[in-house]
């Protein structure tokens, strides 16, 4: 397993800067509007301060009305300005999100399949769901909130500063402790919350497994076992949640206690300034209200800091996909011939021993070649080399004289197709599931492909080719799904097919049905069948026996049986002959 890369800080910073550059105008507009809205919001405490001064000076009630009206006007202005600012910001967030996710999918689709397999699809699946969503949430909610809060906080400080420079400084009286505890918290929080999330999904997985395997629980009498296992998961969840609670138990009270400091400092300093006659009582009242107003933005920033941090971590993982070199475009043009030749091929998986030790094999166009041998002999590896998914460490696999790995991947796939146990029905209509194999295929082509593989269930579909499949819509059973996969092959029409135990994962009944549908696909093509059932070998033109990474026997079934080697012995025992 070789993990997929994660982008470093520099790459993340560059990509954020790039995004900001592309959206420069809407960003500046949003910023200006937010500042204007925040200024309108700050007018209220200042006006209250003015009222206090007037009242202290002995103003009449009617005198107050003008100021009250001005406050209402400011609030209305704030509503309109912040609405527009939010809207500009939201639009920017949506665009940024769309771009990020589209880039991610486009890059994922360009990944060389060998890289994906080596890393496992689990990591990629997490990035496509959890990480893209986390980044999306950050861009949509966290960034705007933090941005607004920072603007508001700065302006509160500026406003208090205008009342009196020293009062402005005092708004930040709580900052040192808040910053210190935030640093402490942020260093520990991500891991703790990650552990909490993992524990929660592990518990759900454990309980779901117990439910899915209920018959097995009964058959193997695993009740106590499953209860013990589930109880351990519940305990683990409790434990991780206590850990995050412990972090909050320090973070929250320190931050909250800090909220009293600015107001206290303001009153204390205000008292002194007042006695010295530097400021009016109204200014002190206004500054105290500003101090109270600074609580909310700080609170918001604190709440979202952790999410912002997670957003950055996810962004690094999303961008990491872009660091993998995309699948190379081919260097050679399409070969004229169809002859697959393997010469002196050796191969090892990263860092391991050779699993193939010098294979020589020639596949004649149009022939059926069965490859048999015990598990671990290197059959599947050979199949991957033949299909050009992996390149040999030594030697060459060529098609019509051109090394298969030099071919353009799209060109190669049109000529050689690899069919494995894995089949996948994409979410979408049946047509979507077939059409991508052969762009330009008509409905008629698709129907005949389905008929050719014996997909008789097609007649029962409510909407024919437009029937929605997968994810909550109609689910196909494994055999039907495999038939869809085979119909794709009929449409793609490669001249060479490599079957790697295409039916081994199916139960025997289903396997039999699927094998029947294979006939239509194999007709008129070169077929290399990796097989674990000997009847496949019996029916092939030639049989290659692979053992320990070498071809030990090669010839027609009858020749090999007559040759009385390992294959012959196996055939006889399988066949039930006691001879």
């Amino acid at each position, binding site marked *: 397993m070789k993990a997929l890369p994660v982008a470093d800080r520099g790459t993340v910073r560059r990509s954020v800067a790039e995004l900001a550059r592309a959206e420069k105008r809407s960003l500046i507009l949003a910023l200006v509007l937010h500042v204007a809205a925040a200024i309108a919001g700050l007018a*209220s405490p200042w006006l209250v301060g003015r009222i206090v001064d*007037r*009242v202290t000076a002995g103003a009449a009630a009617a005198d107050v009305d003008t100021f*009250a009206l001005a*406050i209402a006007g400011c*609030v209305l202005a*704030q*509503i309109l300005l912040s609405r527009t600012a939010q809207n500009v910001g*939201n639009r920017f967030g*949506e665009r940024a*999100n769309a771009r990020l*996710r*589209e880039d991610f999918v*486009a890059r994922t*689709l360009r990944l060389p399949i060998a890289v*994906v*397999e080596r890393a496992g699809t689990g990591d990629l*699946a997490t990035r496509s*769901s959890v990480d893209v*969503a986390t980044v999306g949430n950050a861009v949509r909610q966290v960034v705007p909130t933090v941005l607004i809060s920072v603007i508001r906080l700065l302006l509160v400080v500026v406003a208090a500063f205008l009342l009196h420079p020293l009062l402005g400084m005092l708004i930040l009286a709580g900052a040192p402790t808040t910053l210190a505890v935030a640093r402490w918290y942020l260093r520990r929080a991500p891991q703790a919350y990650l552990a909490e999330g993992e524990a929660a999904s592990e*518990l759900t997985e454990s*309980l779901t497994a117990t439910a*899915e395997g*209920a*018959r*097995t*629980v*009964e*058959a*193997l*009498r695993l*009740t106590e076992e499953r*209860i013990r296992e*589930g109880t351990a998961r*519940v305990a683990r969840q*409790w434990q991780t949640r206590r850990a995050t609670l412990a972090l909050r138990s320090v973070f929250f009270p320190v931050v*909250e206690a800090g909220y*009293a400091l600015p107001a*206290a400092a303001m009153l*204390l300093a205000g008292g002194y300034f*007042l*006695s010295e006659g530097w400021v009016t*009582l109204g200014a002190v009242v206004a500054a105290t209200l500003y101090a109270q107003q600074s609580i909310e933005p700080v609170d918001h920033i604190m709440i979202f800091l952790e999410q912002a941090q997670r957003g950055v971590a996810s962004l690094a993982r999303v961008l990491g996909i872009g660091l993998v070199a995309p699948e190379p475009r081919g260097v050679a043009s399409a070969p004229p011939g169809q002859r697959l030749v393997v010469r002196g091929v050796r191969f090892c998986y990263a860092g391991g021993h050779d699993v193939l030790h010098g294979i020589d094999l020639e596949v004649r166009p149009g022939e059926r070649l069965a490859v048999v*041998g*015990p*598990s671990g002999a290197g059959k599947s590896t050979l199949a991957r080399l033949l299909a050009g998914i992996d390149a040999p460490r030594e030697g060459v696999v060529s098609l019509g004289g051109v090394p298969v790995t030099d071919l353009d991947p799209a060109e190669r796939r049109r000529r050689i197709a690899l069919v494995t*146990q894995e089949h996948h029905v*994409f979410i979408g209509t049946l047509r979507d599931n077939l059409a*991508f194999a052969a762009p330009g295929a008509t409905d008629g082509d698709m129907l005949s492909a389905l008929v050719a593989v014996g997909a008789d269930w097609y007649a029962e579909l409510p909407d024919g080719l437009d029937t929605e499949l*997968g994810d909550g819509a109609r689910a196909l059973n494994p055999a039907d799904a495999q038939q869809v996969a085979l119909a794709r092959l009929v449409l793609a029409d490669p001249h060479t097919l490599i079957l790697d135990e295409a039916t*081994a994962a199916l139960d*025997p009944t289903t396997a*039999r049905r699927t094998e*029947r549908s294979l006939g239509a696909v*194999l007709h008129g093509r070169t077929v290399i069948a990796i097989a*674990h059932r000997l*009847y496949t070998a019996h029916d092939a033109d030639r049989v290659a026996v692979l053992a320990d990474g070498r071809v030990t026997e090669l010839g027609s079934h009858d020749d090999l049986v007559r040759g009385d080697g390992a294959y012959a012995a*196996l055939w006889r025992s*399988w066949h*039930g002959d006691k001879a």
Partner: protein
Amino acid sequence: MRYLWWLVRSQWPRALRGSVVGTAWMIGLAVRPWLIARAIDDGLRAGDTRALLTWVGAIIVAGVVVAWLGIMRHRTMTFLREDATARSSQVVLHHIARLGAVLPRRVPAGEIATVCGTDVSQASWALTMTGPGVGAVLAYATASVVLWSVDPMLALFVLLGVPVVVLVVGPLLNRLQGVDTGYRHELGILTSRAGDIVAGLRVLAGVGGRDLFARRYAARSQSLLQQGYRVGSIMSWVQALTVGIPALFLAAIVWLSARMAAEGQITVGEMVAVYGYAAILSVPVWFLLEGGFMTVRGLVAARRIIAVLRVQPDAGAAGPAPHGPADLHDPQSGLTVPVGRMIGVAAEDPAAAIALADRLARYVSSEVSWGGLPIAGVDPAEIRARILVADHDSYLFPGTLREVLRTRHDVTDAQLAAAVHTASADDIVESLPGGLDGQIEARGSNLSGGQRQRVRLAQHLLAEPDVLILVDPTSAVDSHTEARIADRLHEHRTGRTTVVIATSPLLLDRTDLVAFLRDGQVAAAGRHDELLETEPGYRALVARDAAEPESDAARVGALR
């Protein structure tokens, strides 16, 4: 409701503490505006430094106390919720672990995932009402008294105004949630499309069509972008109004109280305090509003939990089982499974063989007799303990290979090694990082089809039941391995009853006796080689080169 009540009752001291601390915290929130008012009036305005210092000191102390109360409230409520979550999880766990084969028939697995993942925690969140919910009401009452002492008219205005504002803004937020739900739903679909592409990458690599999928995803993403614009437009109004409407209300209060201050009815400090109270009073009202939503959601969740808990196992008989191993007889097919032997069952229709296995182990109602006793009358626990059907649906739970294999506790390492050897699974132990201590994922998803089958076989052998019914135990392994397993299986089960349902000649050849099933009935019985000679139908089924039956003809045609 009864369920939620039970969750509260089972930890009532904690719930009570939550209420007390929650109330104290909310009242504490109202203290700061009052203290600031005192500091302004007694300290600043009067020019009394001592008084100012006292009140400022009080503000700081109050800040610390409120922070302490706040975290105590949060801790108590978290413990309350976590206790409820753990309790609910345990109840569900114990229930589903006991239900057995009934469960998948009554409740879809996705439902269980929702109950465990979402409903359990939503039911717990409803308990939040018990702490701050009660506190909110009391805090509101306290604030009323304080405000009343300032000025009754002003108090009425504030006390009635705050709930009105919250009731106006609350539905706005709800509407936002509604719009957002549609967007999130679409976003969810888009996410599953991305996941779908990731899951199908190998198919796309094998057949092509990547560009098409990239374009299709981008088109959907762009249409979501348009929807996002629309949601954003509504959202920005809601966001601005949720802030703006309370601000307007506050402006009205300032205006009223300022006029009063100007007329000398209240002091300047009191005017500032009223401003503060109005801002802080919204906290308990919000709590009540949110608490209401949580309780409703919690009730729905509790109902779904109850629905799972109501599923009951089939009422079973409690009769005795035969002492010691005994023959099994199935009147429907006419098959008798003799004690201590290994018999093969080759069925023309695989479904008939699987139905036979289900009857023998009484997964369905059956006429089968066991040592002369009707199996329908035997205690199901006894049957499960002694008769095991090893089929393809058998679930592999995640864990180390050793844990997966050891379903009984008294399994020795030697027995483990013997079963692994019989199932020809030594290479799995070798190739798995960590060997026997290597991890197996749920459903054995990190194993190949053949490996899964051999792990299951070893697991079922280690369960050592009196009667082991193996359904196609080697269908996914290569012929070399199958030959080895066939050789070893008979020896491993010597002296114990084993039924092998298969059509593989390698396996059938190593059994003591083979029953050939046609139309669900035993059509012939004898040793494998005898049946090959005497039964053309049997020969056609198991030996592939003889007279070609329908399915074989197709298969051979497939490769010719």
